[in-house]
């Protein structure tokens, strides 16, 4: 049972997806597995997110042959995607810092 609501997790999900693909290009299932390790969301919700980020040109996709089945679609972070990711990350750090400070303050006052 988790207390963080789905909408909140969905918001953070975008940042996590973008960061995962920064180091190297990944294909769908791989990306879903990586993200699932960090945050507990339903797997079905990640593909629409990938679709949206691709439609907004933050991702580029290409097909690569695989030995284990049909060719896989790989996701690659574009220049625009990197900029978007940096902005998101900055906002998140700012947000996180403020919330942490607020919690510390209110604990002091308890």
């Amino acid at each position, binding site marked *: 049972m988790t207390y963080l609501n789905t909408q909140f997790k969905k918001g953070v999900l975008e940042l996590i997806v973008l960061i995962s693909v920064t180091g190297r290009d990944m*294909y*769908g*299932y791989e990306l*879903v597995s990586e993200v699932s390790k960090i945050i507990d*969301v*339903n*797997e*079905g*919700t990640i*593909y*629409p*997110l*990938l*679709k*949206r980020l691709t*439609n907004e040109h933050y991702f580029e996709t290409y097909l690569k042959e695989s030995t*284990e*089945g*049909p060719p*896989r*679609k790989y996701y690659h972070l574009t220049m625009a995607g990197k900029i978007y990711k940096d902005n998101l990350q900055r906002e998140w750090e700012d947000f996180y810092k403020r919330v942490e400070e607020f919690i510390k303050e209110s604990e002091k006052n308890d």
Partner: protein
Amino acid sequence: MTKNEFFKYLDKRLSVLNEKEREDIKSEYSQHIHMKIQSGKSEEEAIRDFGDIESFVDDILSAYNVDPNYRKSHIDSDIAEKAINNGMGIFRKAFNKAKAFISDAAGFILGNKLSTLFSLFLKGLVIFIIVFFIYGLGYFIVNYLGMIFLRDMFPHILGIPIGEYLWKFIRFIYAATGFCVALTLVIAYIRDSVYKINKKGGKKVESNIVESEKVVNEAVVTDENNVKAENTEKVKRERRSLADYDFMGFLLKIVILCIRIGVFFTLLPYAFMMFFAVVGFGILLVAAFAGYPAWGLAICTLGFDLCAAAVFAFIVKLVYFTKFGKKGGESI
């Protein structure tokens, strides 16, 4: 939900997208399911892990800036197809569960080959009883109402006992329609089973028959020593899945299916009545123009037609198009 059902749902909800996009989305999910199966999960489990399907399909549509609610309630306009598919699905599930239980018990008592036949027989018997009573109820209503309205109230028109003939004709049409519906259901069911048998590469395994059955067949082929162990293992697995099945939702589905079947057969005589009322209106109109004092009756008949059509439309929408069950679950 099987992969095919999932893809059918995607096709319907995403019909507004162009085909290339739809196929791309389906292939991504297909690959994901494929990799999940490789890591040991079943197709159904992999799809269950996706979470709330309706909601993420909403997200897919949003990614293309399409309103997720566009045509959501219109994805299925074919009443009969929907009723049959749901009916088949529910019947199949219900009888698989009952059959599993009976197979275990009967297998223990009778020995394995006999229990297969016994449970098949029981399955057929229960279907027959249900259909017989629902259909019989409908027939009783048709007969009774037809008798009152057609044979007794309007016995003679222009000197011919039309009422009597109409009553007999309607009964015949009803019987014929019921027979055709039953035949369609049986054919759809057989075709489904055959498709599944063919999919299994010709192995004599009906996939309708539940896991404990499959093990019986395989056990005959494999090492005799492992038979008992495999048998109890698979039986345990089935019992666990039975325990976490949603019984309330399942019961609700059965009730709604019965209501829909009952209403379908009950509405048939009214449909015919409406049709003949339209014809009657035409006849009265002709008579009125020919000089008979039939204007009043003609207007009454027209009024009856309009009201009946409205009531009919309302009932049909209520029974067949309303979504029951929790939001985001499989729509019934």
